[in-house]
């Protein structure tokens, strides 16, 4: 038998990467969002003399911190190809449970445990139906959206739970300057507890998604669940974990929001699920799964917070704000696509 002799060539060197880190950043979605955030910041500071007041700015962070905490977990979930539309309903249920516990005389640590526990259970229920039974997540979570909020509504009716212990107010109303160890530098006294929580969760989720094997699994599953499974990645277990994570983060948001408002009605956080999804999509997360970054979502949260705040200072009613957010979303999504199309036409 004659052998086919393959020519032994010198080993070809393949570079790791083609572009520099700077080059990559300037072509990225995050760069565009940062530019938009800066533009809105400047526009706001011209539009209203009250905008640059540190206490006002500090107040403004509440517009996005709670939603962003859920959006971080939602980002991972959407990248993996799933979605959770029940997050706002989980807040309602968790808040109702905490309210009932507060009425029964439980103190802040127990309330926090209950809030997180309800979030975890709701996430586990969603995750079980999607990852174990194999139902589509959009259908499951539209169902549990009604289910969770429905339970809250039955329990509460038209009443409102109030009377939370004073120590519980710390989460949603506290300032870091309440701590003796917080540096007494100028400007630092306005930093809220929630703002710090936002930063910490951004770091945790950023590291989880971008620097761990788990995060790699999330991307692989979202881009090609078959190939992920064929590579030995536990696809269903990962998805279940993501639903748990989203549930728990909804519980965290419920604690912050309930603490901030000091009362619970069944309409609490109504419509937040769409704002959370909007935040993720605006942050560059593909709604089809497979791509997106936490820095992008952080920037998107800030952009949405700034827009809401600026329009609020100008006394623009809430409904106009949502119109503005909607237009912003379409604009930011459309812009790169239109630019690419014009470029390719110019090239042709």
């Amino acid at each position, binding site marked *: 038998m004659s052998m086919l002799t393959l020519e032994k060539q010198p080993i070809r060197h*393949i570079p*790791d990467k083609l572009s520099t880190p700077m080059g990559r950043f300037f072509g990225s979605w995050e760069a565009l969002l940062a530019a938009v955030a800066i533009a809105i910041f400047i526009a706001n500071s011209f539009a209203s003399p009250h905008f640059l007041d540190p206490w006002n700015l500090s107040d403004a962070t509440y517009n996005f911190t709670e939603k962003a905490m859920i959006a971080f977990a939602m980002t991972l979930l959407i990248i993996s190809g799933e979605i959770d539309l029940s997050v706002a309903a989980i807040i309602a249920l968790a808040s109702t449970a905490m309210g009932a516990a507060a009425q029964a005389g439980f103190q802040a640590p127990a309330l926090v445990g209950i809030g997180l526990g309800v979030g975890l259970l709701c996430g586990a229920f969603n995750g079980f139906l999607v990852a174990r039974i194999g139902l589509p997540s959009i259908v499951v979570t539209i169902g549990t959206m009604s289910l969770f909020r429905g339970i809250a509504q039955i329990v509460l009716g038209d009443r409102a739970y109030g009377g939370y212990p004073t120590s519980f107010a710390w989460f949603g109303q506290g300032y870091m300057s309440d701590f003796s160890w917080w540096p007494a530098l100028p400007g630092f006294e306005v930093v809220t507890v929630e703002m710090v929580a936002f930063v910490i969760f951004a770091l945790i989720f950023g590291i989880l998604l971008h620097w761990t094997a788990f995060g*790699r699994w999330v991307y692989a599953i979202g881009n*090609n669940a078959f*190939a992920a499974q064929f*590579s*030995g990645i536990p696809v269903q277990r990962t998805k279940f974990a993501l639903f748990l994570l989203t549930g728990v983060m909804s519980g965290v948001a419920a604690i912050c929001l309930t603490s901030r408002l000091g009362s619970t009605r069944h309409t609490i956080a109504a419509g937040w699920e769409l704002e959370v999804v909007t935040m993720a999509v605006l942050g560059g997360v593909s709604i089809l799964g497979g791509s997106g970054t936490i820095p992008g979502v952080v920037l998107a949260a800030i952009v949405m917070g700034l827009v809401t705040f600026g329009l609020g200072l100008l006394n623009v009613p809430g409904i106009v704000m949502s119109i503005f957010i909607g237009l912003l979303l379409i604009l930011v999504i459309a812009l790169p696509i239109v630019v690419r199309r014009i470029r390719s036409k110019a090239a042709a």
Partner: protein
Amino acid sequence: MSVVQAAHHTLTPLLEMRGISKAFPGVKALDQVDVILYPGTVTALIGENGAGKSTLVKILTGIYQPDGGEILVDGAPVEFGNADAAIRSGITAIHQETVLFDELSVAENIFLGHAPRDRLGLVNWAAMNARAAALLTSIDAPISPYTRLKDLSIAHRHLVAIARALSVEARVVIMDEPTAALSYKEVEDLFRIIERLKKQGKAILFISHKFEEVYEIAEHFVVFRDGRSIGSGLLSQTGQDEIVRMMVGRSVEHVFPKVDVTIGNTVLKVSGYSHPTEFDNISFDLHRGEILGLYGLVGAGRSELCQALFGITRPSAGMVELEGRPIALHSPRDAIAAGIVYVPEERGRHGVVLQMPIFQNISMATLGKTTRAGFLRQAEEFALARRYAERLDLRAAALSVPVGTLSGGNQQKVVVGKWLATRPKVIILDEPTKGIDIGSKAAVHAFMSELASEGLSVIMVSSELPEILGMSDRVLVMREGRMAGTWRRDELDAETLVRAATGNV
């Protein structure tokens, strides 16, 4: 090259294809083929997988345009710019898996795209249902035009597909492996329909692997091999042996660089492996350094067997032992941990994540090695990817480009690299060179040899005879989910394998 002269026919040809050629990047799918179809006659198109049969069908139905040659209908040249043009010339095809619509009625399926209209341009439901009923009666199909397609059995769906093909004024009917999914009884029904079509003067091109069927229903034959028409003639004057020789007749030894390797101890022992529907009672041993070829027709259960060995589907009975110890394979994770890896046939769907960079694909199954406490270590990931990329002579602009930007052969190298990084004991390659250009094919083959010589055991599923004959130390042939036999390298010849695979012993 033995060309059996087409028989002395008194009829004038209904359709003639002369010197048809079609090339795709890296491969010449059809090279000056000639096919002639006569009215009222069944012509069987015979050839191995990849011989160019499907390409011919696609040209005849207007899906591909030929690079050269001409098509004549009733002696007049025609050109099919699209599928519609072919239908208007009276050419219709029934594919292996015709696309039908579950939620629509039988009549709607039959007339989709060419429903009878009334004066206002709306669908004339009465006419459509009546014509559908007439069509179904004409092929003896006991189906109501009003039934939803999803309520029909596979065989009845097939009849709907045939009715759909006949709903246009068809003169040439192409049947691409129409019996693949049918039972014996259903095949008989199909043959009755074919007889009826013959009487109506239609010309039929019948594509099948099964010799008994071909001899039963067809009068003429054409054999394709490597994109060329090798022979044609009357079946009544041609023996099966001669046709098998035409299908496989070529010397294959020169293309494949299989080096002789000392075969070691048994690594993998599979006994009585069975699946409820796909395969039954499969037993074999695989040795160190051995390449076991798995040959059979498409649908013989080879891929399903491999996927069970990789933990994707669950077997219903049987046992797998690796190096003497029984192992449980409940998921790909189990298989990978045990040292069995699988390079799937559908590379883009199962093998790689096309959107993700090369280095992330290569490290995907070994993240434990490039992470510490769950944290990714990019430098080690790049080092691992570079090691296998260079070993496999990967051609890429950078390790961070998406795998989807690479050619098929280079994508395959990424899949193989991913698995080699896990340091497996058994590597299963499912159609490893499918859709790969010639140059990369040789590289894949050379590499398989190298792996075997390093002591890896290889199972290679292939439908390409030269590949099976050239690369395997041993060949296991499967037919309809069962073992049709095993042959050692020195006992191998193409005809034996084709006979075993087609049941033509």
